[in-house]
């Protein structure tokens, strides 16, 4: 009964969304206040209905109602509660309901918090946002209905893929979708601005916090996926340039660019046309990511079960919104008033450089991801584009970006003095040179490029700190005066510093683990010892064990360093009951210098076990760095001036606002 109720709620949500798509936009066109005001309650009703649908699906999962086809195909009564809940979005149909739920939540947020938005802008935004919801609700109801019943109901379900039964992965999709879908709001604002034919600083002021929120969620979502791949897949890799990883990375790159260009638009009313285009493209890339994952056109570890009908439907949605958005852009972009003038050496100029580099980097990833598809449809040849392509194209574009990064926040708006900025970065430059020399001296192996990589990472980190040090006049005024300035610093300035610092830390982690990873694959019998990266691992044998819904073989390893015991590692090989599938659980010891990583392989006929050891130097910096980026975003979001609904502070000259 509850299932039918949920299904019905989803159909009602579609009807509400159709009304919300048409009425407010019509009202804005006719300048009818009452019709425009219809948008807000409709958006709230829509989110309530989708929430009912989502919760009733969750109810079916929690109570293991196997008369629902979706539950029977993806859940199992023996699964722990948390994975029965996360199972809701661990499959195609359920994850689409979550997708639409998040979409509706963002729409409702505009309705609820957007009281001080111009009525017509708000009406148009809600209409556009709702048109996306209409498309995806139709998609769910016509091609991927999660509420379909089975008759007769099976005795038990088929279970969730065991590698998905993991805490990090349970929350990876919700964050990822919040990121993807969050960019829909930037898209809706961009389309609304084009419909109205005007934008202003208030527009950017509105778009920026939502883009920032989406960007934060996408950042943490991608990081969670990477972290999960690192410890769960048993290869110790953290990024594979897999097409589906790229599908989430491209909106991230475009979103990062959008975040920075919206800044220029807000502060200086420049780059309007470009910012609007970027907002359309960012969401288009999110839609493309959805298409690539759902249609199964690409070979990937993440692919969902494939259904050509769905692929065509999502492709149609993507073409409609991207094509429609770009067509409207082509028609109306000329009407947007031009903004302030700036010299190439200025804050604006540095942000333009940031945008150009990020966009082109995004293009290289796009080409690498889609080239196999294009080639196959043109010539029939099947190819794969691997990591070497991305290392040769993406990485060289990131180097100038990272080198220029510390300059950005030190530049003044309109016209800046590059010599002065350089002066403030002397300490950061010296520090990175020291690190470069030290890295060369200390490491006797590894690629010769790695010390440069460390130097760049340190340059970015130290550059971020130097900027804050300059702003609080550290060293040039008494310390308590600096502390006072520090506490008075706008939160968004802290956010910028942290986010940039996080980037530098992540670069160091990437360079460390890529350049200096060590790996050993060998056969071991109980009692044997192997050394890797200064650690001695002694195999103590393997024993079977039983978990809630799996059986496993646990290998025991004693780890010592210079004779002193360090830890025990217990990698295991699991066989899940439903579906019967093996997985490897790595044994990981996190030291300050890096991760010791052990995987238990198959037992050989002669009784020895195949084992694999890795030492990943600094690998944790990658995720700590992304976490710091996330925190930076969060602190910036809590800034008064950005907080949604906060009144605009008037009467400040742009020059006196050196924030961000």
């Amino acid at each position: 009964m509850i299932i039918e109720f949920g299904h019905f709620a989803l159909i009602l949500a579609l009807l509400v969304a159709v009304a919300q798509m048409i009425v407010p936009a019509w009202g804005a066109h006719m300048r009818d206040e009452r019709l425009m005001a219809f948008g807000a309650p409709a958006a709230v009703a829509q989110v309530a209905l989708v929430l009912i649908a989502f919760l009733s699906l969750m109810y079916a999962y929690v109570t293991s109602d196997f008369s629902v086809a979706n539950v029977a195909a993806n859940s199992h009564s023996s699964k722990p509660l948390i994975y029965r809940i996360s199972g809701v979005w661990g499959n195609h149909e359920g994850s689409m309901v979550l997708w639409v739920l998040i979409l509706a939540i963002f729409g409702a947020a505009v309705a609820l918090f957007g009281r001080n938005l111009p009525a017509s802008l708000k009406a148009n935004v809600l209409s556009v946002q709702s048109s996306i919801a209409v498309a995806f609700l139709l998609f769910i109801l016509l091609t991927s209905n999660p509420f379909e019943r089975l008759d007769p109901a099976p005795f038990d379900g088929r279970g969730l893929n065991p590698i998905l039964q993991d805490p990090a992965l349970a929350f990876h999709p919700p964050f990822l979708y919040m990121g993807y879908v969050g960019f829909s709001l930037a898209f809706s604002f961009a389309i609304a601005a084009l419909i109205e034919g005007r934008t202003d600083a208030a527009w950017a002021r509105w778009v920026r916090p939502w883009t920032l929120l989406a960007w934060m969620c996408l950042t943490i979502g991608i990081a969670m996926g990477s972290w999960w791949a690192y410890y769960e897949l048993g290869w110790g890799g953290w990024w594979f340039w897999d097409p589906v990883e790229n599908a989430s990375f491209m909106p991230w790159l475009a979103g990062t660019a959008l975040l920075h260009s919206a800044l220029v638009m807000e502060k200086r009313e420049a780059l309007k046309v470009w910012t609007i285009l970027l907002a359309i493209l960012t969401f288009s890339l999110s839609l493309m990511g959805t298409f690539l994952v759902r249609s199964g056109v690409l070979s990937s570890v993440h692919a969902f079960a494939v259904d050509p009908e769905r692929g065509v439907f999502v492709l149609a949605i993507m073409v409609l919104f991207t094509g429609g958005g770009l067509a409207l852009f082509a028609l109306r972009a000329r009407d947007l008033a031009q903004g302030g003038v700036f010299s190439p050496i200025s804050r604006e100029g540095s942000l333009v450089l940031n945008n150009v580099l990020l966009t082109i980097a995004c293009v290289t990833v796009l080409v690498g991801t889609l080239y196999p598809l294009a080639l196959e449809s043109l010539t029939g040849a099947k190819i794969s584009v691997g990591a070497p392509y991305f290392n040769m194209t993406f990485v060289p574009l990131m180097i100038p970006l990272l080198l220029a990064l510390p300059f950005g926040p030190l530049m003044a708006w309109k016209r800046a003095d590059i010599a002065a900025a350089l002066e403030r970065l002397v300490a950061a430059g010296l520090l990175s040179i020291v690190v470069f020399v030290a890295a060369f001296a200390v490491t006797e192996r590894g690629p010769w490029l790695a010390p440069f990589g460390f130097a760049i990472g340190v340059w970015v980190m130290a550059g971020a700190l130097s900027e804050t040090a300059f702003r609080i006049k550290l060293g040039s005024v008494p310390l308590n005066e600096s502390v006072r300035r520090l506490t008075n610093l706008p939160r968004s300035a802290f956010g910028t510093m942290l986010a940039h610092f996080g980037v530098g830390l992540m670069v160091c982690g990437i360079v460390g683990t890529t350049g200096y990873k060590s790996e050993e694959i060998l056969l071991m019998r109980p009692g044997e010892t192997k050394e890797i990266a200064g650690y001695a691992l002694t195999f103590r044998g393997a024993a079977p064990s039983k978990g809630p819904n799996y059986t496993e073989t646990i290998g025991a390893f004693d780890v010592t360093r210079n004779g002193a015991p360090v830890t025990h590692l217990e990698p295991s090989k699991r066989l899940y009951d439903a579906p019967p599938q093996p997985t490897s659980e790595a044994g990981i010891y996190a030291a300050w210098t890096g991760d010791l990583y052990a995987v238990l392989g198959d037992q050989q006929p002669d009784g020895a076990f195949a084992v694999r050891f890795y030492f990943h130097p600094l690998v944790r910096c990658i995720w700590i760095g992304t976490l710091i980026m996330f925190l930076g975003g969060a602190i910036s979001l809590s800034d008064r001036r950005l907080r949604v609904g906060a009144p605009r502070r008037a009467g400040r000259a742009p020059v006196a606002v050196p924030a961000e």
Partner: protein
Amino acid sequence: MTRKQRRGLVIGLGVGLLSVAAILMMFAFRQSVVFFHTPTDVAEHKIAPGMRFRLGGLVKAGSVVRGQGTKVQFSVTDTLQAVPVSYEGILPDLFREGQGVVTEGTLGPDGHFVADTVLAKHDETYMPPEVAKALQEKGVKLGEGATHPEAVTQ
């Protein structure tokens, strides 16, 4: 600086960087693109020894032989032809006889494929699309939406 000059500068910067990127991309494609072939392709096309490619198909039933250490030999088949493969390292969890697999490496002069990477996909009900497609093109019947390797009629 006028608006026109500024725009020219930005466009120049963009076009310049884009062409650098395009050159890098072409260069990178030439070096890092790997083609996918089935065992029948290997038998028919006579792929040059030493060229790196991906060989995909099913692990032939009864062909897995473990050698010294972590060395292992098996055959990859598309049910029409089979290619012997040797690999040294730990096989993925989902590597099983009858399971869809993609291996990457080079073909030796003796027709033996030396793989340095073995990918078995992470879902037992999932077959790499290249493999499923190639098998279908070869007229192999696949059951249950071409996703379940055990449903392949051999």
